[in-house]
């Protein structure tokens, strides 16, 4: 009987919600942003699946109903964007140049660091688009003849790091401006970073949402030229 329930969507949905509630509880208790509910929930579920040898596919029967809401939630990022349209128009040059430089730096550093530490060319190429949203990153990986599955994993890990430490890294580095913070988080860590940026404030969230789209488009346009030069 229990196997039947594990294979039904009820399992994945319930487990995800409970794990996230545990994460929220721990965050409230510790008041620490490194204790990130998304990260805690993800870790708890992974440990549970590995311990009880439950295939990811069974979990995702329910999980997919929760991740489905990423679609409408991303569309809804148009709302803070619209509310902050005056800021975006005023600082359009700063925003565009910031995203462009960050995207170039991301492609170069990801590929070069991996190569320098002994990874082969295909791995380096697979990591190059790690900062952009998954569908764009996979498309780029295919075009560059990388490993799309490694790219998917790299995109998720990048997002988790950005969500967990993005605002802290920026604070230490002396980036205090709300617009610059949001743009940096969205450029470095796509939607997952944005899920943290929206908790920092409305302007940060709006700018991060804007950067997901712009960084994705800019990266897909420039990446073939950059990797040809360095690899």
């Amino acid at each position, binding site marked *: 009987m229990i196997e039947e329930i594990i294979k039904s969507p009820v399992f994945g949905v319930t487990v995800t919600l409970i794990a996230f509630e545990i994460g929220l509880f721990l965050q409230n208790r510790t008041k620490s942003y490194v204790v990130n509910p998304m990260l805690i929930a993800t870790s708890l579920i992974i440990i549970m699946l590995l311990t009880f040898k439950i295939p990811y596919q069974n979990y995702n029967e329910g999980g997919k109903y929760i991740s489905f809401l990423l679609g409408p939630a991303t569309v809804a990022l148009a709302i803070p964007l619209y509310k902050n349209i005056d800021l975006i128009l005023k600082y359009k040059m700063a925003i565009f140049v910031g995203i462009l430089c960050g995207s170039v730096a991301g492609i170069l550093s990801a590929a070069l*660091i991996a190569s320098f530490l002994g*990874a082969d060319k295909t791995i380096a190429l697979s990591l190059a688009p790690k900062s952009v949203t998954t569908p764009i990153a996979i498309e780029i990986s295919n075009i560059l003849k990388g490993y799309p599955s490694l790219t998917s994993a790299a995109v998720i890990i990048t997002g988790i790091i950005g969500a967990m430490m993005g605002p802290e890294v920026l604070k230490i580095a002396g980036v205090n401006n709300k617009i610059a913070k949001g743009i940096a988080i969205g450029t470095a860590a796509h939607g997952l970073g944005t899920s943290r940026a929206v908790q920092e404030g409305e302007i940060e969230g709006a700018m991060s949402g804007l950067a997901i789209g712009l960084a994705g488009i800019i990266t897909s346009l420039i990446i073939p030229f950059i990797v040809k030069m360095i690899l």
Partner: protein
Amino acid sequence: MEIIKGFSIIMIFLFLGEFISKGLNIPIPGNVIGMILLFLALVTRIVKLSDVENVGTGLIKNLSLFFVPVGVGIILYFDAISKNAVPILSSIVLSTFIVLIITGHITQLIMGIKKEVDKDD
């Protein structure tokens, strides 16, 4: 009723975004195209902010919950990563920090220059 109306409008824009992404075969995800279209619709007042604001804000607040199943998905790639864990993980972590710092500082720097120029005018 308000919730259903707001959610319907957002879903229509997601649908349009998916339609354009798949129909024109462009590698920009449908949800990002949907975001751009809804933004344009708000600017041109085709959609009223009050119609989508409550539902939209609720969805955005829970964005990190919706990413949990995606995060759990790295379980599928443990083998692919473990063979070259050191170069892969170092590259991802360092490069993410580099992008954060460079993007943040350059955006902040140019904004500062613009503020100075505006003051002089």
